[in-house]
């Protein structure tokens, strides 16, 4: 329980930190903190307690960001990318990208290639998660639209 709270707090702080670097508007800070903290904590629980594949955990994290971003950006009238850019920073594969270069320097080319592929896969799955959120929302919108027409 303490671990969850600590994760929530630190990942929220880190998302807000990145929003300071990218110069996000002041009123968005709280929203970014909540979204970043929640998405990271879901990723962390899935990865460390449920032990699913890291790619799927990333996918679910990105999906959470996408759905929350859609709701909050409309509620507070903010552009979408203001919310999701700082939130993604916790999930992006910085460690793998670093190890790609590290192994390359140490002449371990096979391991380097492995890490490069992992980096690309994680980044792709994050993008797929964000895309799926949009797709789900547009599907739901379509269903609502066609029901209205039928009546």
């Amino acid at each position, binding site marked *: 329980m303490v671990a969850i709270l600590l994760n929530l707090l630190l*990942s929220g702080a880190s998302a807000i*930190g990145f929003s*300071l670097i990218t110069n996000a508007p002041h009123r*968005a800070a709280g929203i970014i903190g909540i979204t970043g903290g929640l998405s990271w904590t879901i990723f962390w629980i899935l990865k460390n307690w449920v032990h699913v594949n890291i790619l799927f955990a990333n996918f679910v994290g990105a999906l959470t960001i996408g759905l929350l971003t859609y709701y909050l950006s409309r509620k507070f009238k903010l552009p979408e990318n203001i919310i999701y850019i700082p939130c993604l920073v916790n999930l992006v594969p910085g460690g793998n990208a670093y190890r790609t270069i590290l192994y390359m320097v140490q002449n371990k080319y096979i391991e380097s290639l492995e890490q490069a592929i992992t980096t690309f896969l994680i980044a792709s799955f994050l993008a797929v998660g964000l895309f799926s959120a949009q797709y789900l929302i547009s599907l739901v919108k379509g269903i609502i639209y066609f029901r209205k027409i039928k009546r």
Partner: protein
Amino acid sequence: MKKTSTQRVSELCLKTGYLLISGGAESYRIEDTIERIGKSLGHEVHCYVTVTAVFVEVDGQNSKFIKSTLGGTNLQMIDDINTMSRQLAEKKLSPKTFTEEIEKIYLDKHTTDFPFYVKAIGAGFVSMAPMLIFTMPLYYFIYCFIVGTIGYGISYYLAKLSSMPYADLFISGFVIALLSILLSRLNLVEQYHSIIIGAIMPLVPGVAITNAIRELVMRHALRHALSSAVKLLDALLVASSIGFGIATALILF
């Protein structure tokens, strides 16, 4: 509604597009915003955005383009212009004041910005995030915070001093690796790799890579392949310049 001349509308749209690109907005969002601004001024505007240029055509007769460069991310700029265009569409803002505001931002290329020390502290917090994965002892967080702040500060000031791209990232990567190795030589930490991973976090373009892939598939498939390719290439160059900076330090020491 009184119509503004097509000449002035096209100039206004170009400037808006230029500002949005330098703020790091997505291409389809920029096209949407510009076409909506044209509509609320009473003109039919068609727009095409690659990240290196903006093309605008007003009422099928006045077409222009502007050359732009890929800048950093400035979310305040996107939010300001977005709010103004929304107000323009709701007729809360007159076209004259809107034009003046855009001109003003275009001239100084500056919005309200956080002071440097706030950004540096933010960078420190970002550096602490990857430590959560490795579940390190608490003092690692503190070292990560310090090294991350220093690395970000170096890249911030070098980017202000010279407009040459990528060199600042190389140097700050080098310094981060140097400091981390120094920490382990002084027996303050056991392994310096996790410190390096944390400290480069504010600089790495993970978000840019994700954005580029996202832009490839969003809204219209492959319509923005050009801007996506530009962003992906930029992200790769940024990543490798940081990586080679670190690699140089690792080889030397």
